[in-house]
């Protein structure tokens, strides 16, 4: 995983990371660099500190501490020596670089009449290594098919951060675009036109408008575009049959999605939420579910064994959130149980059936 982002790192930092054991580097997901503080690594959800001698430590004692000079060089490299070209990104607090890797930034913000204009004195970086998992939607897609339209139902994918939402929607877009509907009744269907609104440049990782991830031959990408506007633009200009958007949540996103789903376009969107109840607590998502803009909800969890999906029909979620059918599907063979948080303290054991989406 390290070799994908190594070109971004200053030489000193690269030397420290390259000393780490191979097995650790293969699991690398996040590199967290804080000026003058220990270098933290995220390895499959676990936090470790890196020592100068190539060891991984549980505690911060004796870990390698990047200097201010290294942080400045890192900033130069991730901004391509052009901070002035990154004003929008600095306002949002992250930069997406070629390959779809997202680098979160923290530091002292610059305010302009109360709203954030940018960040200066950047002292903390979080490099999230993007991974393209081709086939990660293979088990999910056959369960989302809309037989009458030979397409896919409007689907909302829910998960907390770092659970693989983006990876999943990217693969969904790719599969739909290629027409890889899986075995079963969808097998002979042709691919559909997909429009991707990629506000954070994470789904397609466009470099100068051209996707660097394989997102399929029938896919158009509106890169770095606000979701609401992007959806409307795609609807007007590219006649998509499926619109894909990442991390919806604002009021205008809801408006645009409602517009799209009532125009006969299926919407596949992700949102930050732990589960359905969580999502119903967010007014925008609740309204979208209530007025039927989404027909299906997918809860996504990543366990040590792999991705787990649970598919819930939007209707039943609205009617009685507590009594929905536990139809979970495991992509990786495992027998983990799927616990639900919230008011209900009793863990819900999930069935492991592979068919029968609600």
């Amino acid at each position, binding site marked *: 995983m390290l070799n994908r982002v190594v070109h971004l790192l200053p030489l000193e930092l690269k030397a420290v990371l390259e000393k780490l054991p191979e097995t650790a580097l293969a699991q690398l997901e996040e590199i967290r660099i804080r000026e003058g503080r220990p270098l933290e690594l995220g390895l499959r959800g676990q936090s470790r500190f890196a020592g100068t001698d190539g060891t991984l430590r549980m505690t911060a004692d004796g870990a390698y501490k990047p200097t201010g000079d290294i942080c400045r060089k890192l900033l130069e490299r991730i901004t391509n020596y*052009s901070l*002035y*070209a990154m004003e929008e990104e600095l306002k949002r607090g992250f930069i997406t670089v070629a390959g779809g890797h997202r680098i979160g930034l923290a530091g002292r913000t610059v305010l302009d009449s109360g709203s954030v204009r940018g960040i200066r004195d950047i002292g903390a970086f979080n490099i999230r290594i993007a991974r393209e998992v081709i086939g990660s939607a293979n088990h999910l897609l056959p369960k989302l098919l809309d037989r009458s339209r030979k397409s896919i139902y409007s689907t909302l994918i829910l998960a907390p951060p770092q659970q693989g939402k983006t990876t999943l929607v990217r693969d969904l877009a790719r599969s739909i675009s290629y027409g890889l509907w899986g075995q079963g009744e969808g097998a002979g269907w042709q691919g559909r036109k997909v429009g991707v609104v990629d506000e954070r440049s994470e789904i397609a990782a466009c470099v100068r408008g051209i996707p660097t991830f394989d997102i399929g031959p029938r896919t158009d990408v509106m890169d770095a575009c606000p979701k609401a506007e992007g959806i409307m633009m795609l609807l007007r200009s590219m006649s998509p049959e499926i619109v894909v958007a990442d991390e919806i949540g604002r009021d205008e996103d809801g408006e645009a999605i409602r517009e799209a789903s009532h125009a006969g376009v299926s919407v596949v969107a992700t949102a930050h939420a732990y589960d359905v109840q969580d999502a119903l607590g967010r007014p925008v998502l609740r309204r979208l579910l209530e007025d039927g803009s989404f027909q299906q909800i997918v809860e996504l969890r990543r366990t040590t064994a792999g991705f787990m999906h649970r598919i819930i029909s939007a209707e039943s979620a609205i009617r009685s959130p507590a009594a929905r059918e536990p139809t979970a599907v495991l992509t990786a063979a495992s027998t983990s149980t799927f616990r639900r948080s919230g008011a209900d303290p009793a863990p819900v054991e999930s069935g492991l059936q592979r068919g029968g989406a609600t």
Partner: protein
Amino acid sequence: MIKLLGAVLILFAGTLIGFQQAARFAARPRQLRQLAHALQRLETEIGYGHTPLPEALGRIATVVPSPIADLFLLAAEGVAHDDGLSFRESWEQAMKQGWEATAMRAGEQAVMLRLGSALGISDKDDQLKHLKLALLQLKAEEDAAKEDQGRYEKMWKSLGVLIAVLVVILMV
């Protein structure tokens, strides 16, 4: 016969030296003007195009003639190679390496080095301010260079011939 040949050679050499010196005085304001054009172009690339610096420098190098273009190419190449240079280091290296080939002097080099320490590390408004300042300073250098050109260009042209003539006369 040989004496005559020697005299002709000396005259030729003297004239050449004189013309070369004169050409340096003529080249300096011209190159300063080209450098100013290049920076104006950079201003546009940064201000309107939001073009990343290495790419902007590459584009500038295609629109200005050679010794000036090489300065920008060298600076862009320095950060393209993976040897851990910061932009300021790469820029300084380029200004020092490429400067030999130009007719420009230390004054304008200092302007460029100062500019290099600010390029790329701040927001657009600040970048444009630094570029404006550098352009003003280059303008002042260009005026001085023009004055020098008026004063010394003709002088060197005739001085070369005259010295050569003097040497020939002394030798005969």
